[in-house]
């Protein structure tokens, strides 16, 4: 059962990574505007000007 120590450690480290990712996404402003990106992605690709 000692393997549990390792597994618990792994799970905590992974959870911390996810928390870090969340904090990063929040700080970098990814949640500031959740409406415009949804509309922006519907625009067509730019036509290549000849």
């Amino acid at each position, binding site marked *: *059962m000692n393997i549990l120590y390792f597994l618990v450690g792994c*799970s905590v480290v992974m959870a911390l990574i996810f928390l870090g990712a969340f*904090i990063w996404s*929040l700080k970098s402003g990814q949640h500031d*505007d959740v409406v*415009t990106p949804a*509309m*922006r992605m519907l625009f067509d690709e730019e036509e290549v000007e000849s």
Partner: protein
Amino acid sequence: MEQQKIWSANLCYHCGEGISGIDLVIADKHFCCAGCKGVYQILSANNMCAYYAYNEAPGKRNETNTHFEYLEEPNIVKQLVSYQDKNNCIITFYIPAIHCSSCIWLLEHLYKINAAIYSSRIDFLKREVTISFKHQEISLKQVVEILTQIGYEPAINLQDVVKENSNTIHKSLILKIGVAGFCMGNVMLFSFPEYFGLSNLEPQFKALFGWLNLTFSIPVVLYCGKDYFLSAFASLKHKHINLDTPLALIIAVLFLRTAFAVVFNSGVGFADTLTGLVFLLLMGKWVQQRTYHHISFDRDYRSYFPIAITTLQNRQEKQKAINELAIGDRLWIRNGELVPADSILMRGDAWLDMSFVTGETEPQQKVLGEIIYAGGKQMGEGIEIEVVKNASQSYLTGLWNKENYTSNFKQNFNDSVAKYFSIAVFVIAFGALAYWFFNNDSTKAWAAFTAVIIVACPCVLALSTPFTLSAILSVFDKKGFYVKNTDAVEELAHCNSIVFDKTGTLTTTENARISFTGTLTDEEKKLLVSLLNHSSHPLSRQILNNLSYGKFYPISNYKEIPGKGIRGLINNQMVYAGNQSVLPFEIKPDQVSGVHIVINSTYKGTFMVSQQWRSNLPWLIAALGKQFSLKVLSGDTNKDEKALQSLFPTLTTLKFEQSPQQKLAAILQQQQNGEKVMMLGDGLNDAGALKQSDFGIAITDNINNFTPGCDAILKGTSMGLLPNFHQLSKDGLKIIKISFAIAIAYNCVGLYYAVQGTLYPLVAAVLMPLSTITIISFTTIATRFFARKNNLR
């Protein structure tokens, strides 16, 4: 395809308005005016016609001639930009015209028009665009001019200079929720073995999980729960107990008990309850703080004022920021510009629209040397004025500076209950403590003491209010009633008297009724529409729509005299339309206001534009009259007194020619008589009264228009629902009280175990989420029920 053709034939390709008058055609596309055509030409020249592909007629007609010279002043630019270095400059504009996906496309492709604008990002809900440009290659003024040319004029006003940072507060709350949720999830995971009794097999894991749980609790208490401790200390300092006081105590007790249990290996502690509690509390806070980012409730006079004004220095025009204006400065006010500070008229013909200040609809003429109050809008040629008071000390802005607002301390239901709640909890907790000490069982005494405090958690109380009130907010929101925050809903429920403003509140600015004194032959109609068609003045457009005559003559010698009227030579006949001063001769003195028509030196009649009462107003007044005492405070003259008397119940106070200060004083008077006053107003002249009232509602026909600071914004079309809104807010308070009773019932079950000292962590961990779920589902269902009952769904 057929439909498409009909569309393009009758409606403007750019703005979608009906084409009345000259039809401008380029490349099979029809335009209603030179402005719309101009925008199309710019876009097609820059290969940006995709703008028209995403939505039909996405443009908005704009007829502005704002001057942007002030954007060349480094001092003003410095206040506006959010970032600037040697090459780059970043600025955020509020653009009211943003309304569809085409707008996003166009404004994010500004680099096609000018490559120096290398990035532009839109925030659609806030109607903001953040533009980054190389200021060596293009000046800020040019950027704004490009925006204006394509129909997206940014609204730059004095309040922009003061940047608000409410967003950062919101962000830190989300961060706290994230951390609390993370800790709660992990603690739950490590508590499972305990729930299932596995730790008896592996005692060394029990200690490990205990220590892990304790570690995860530390950030929850010290970081996420910090605000509760700060708030509790602050309220104790003021010798008064708010809801955060018992909450802080519970968090502290839970943490200390967990720490003791883990350190002395005497159990598992309450880490799961603790983290879950903090997480839920923060969620409740978040629901409560959820506001409308795209609507501003805190506007004051600064939003109405421009950021800079033209001053005259030695006959040279110079742009100066409003807050740098000094007494003695000479200002040059053009047609349509606002007087920013109390001044004396020095030169020119001043016709001032004082509706911002007094609510009066007719423009006033001022003579040389007369004082002009800030907030007046010049309707006519440019005038020269001399400042006699600083902008921040003028008559109008004094409404905000004066500390004449009695701070109506708003104590909500929660805080008033919290005191009794805390006392009851302490009595029971100390009772249990004393009882077990009496029985010489000190361990049980402490266990019972702490357990009572844990179980009697007012968490439900802290959650039911935000959940109920925010559910009500979203019901209101769908019906066009935007309330500032959840506390304001409680204020609404308590109101017992209503004060109305007249212009713009009881009357509507749209759908003005146009009546004509006199008669026009078909030929004269044709002459008149040919003249009016050239003017972009709102009155001309309204009369043009009213006449609905589709044939036109060519026109020559057209002249528009701003603020006065228009004239032109049509079919060799001189046609005049406007007020007295544009006409070639004096007409009957009884016809003062309105648009007078003179064709070939004969007076033909006058178009009277009268404001119309809002629809179903009699019904609304009757419904409100049953529950509230009503009152009308109007800044306008008493010309509508008769009509109002028939609308309102007899003995209703109707006051006219009220200054903003008098309105404010009247509200204050009512409040001193113990009334809870709801104020309905629309303009800056009501701003003081709106702020002072217990619940100020700003009525608007267009939600994107500027509204004065208030507690709620109501769409004019939803005004008929006001009694229903009020009833729902009252029902909301009822829901909160019922959920409080439910919470008490749960607490009694918990207390039964707690006083005996046999509250197992598992019971606490189940009881708390169970009661929370009950309350949240109860409030949601009950709110839906009451919303349906009040016809708001």
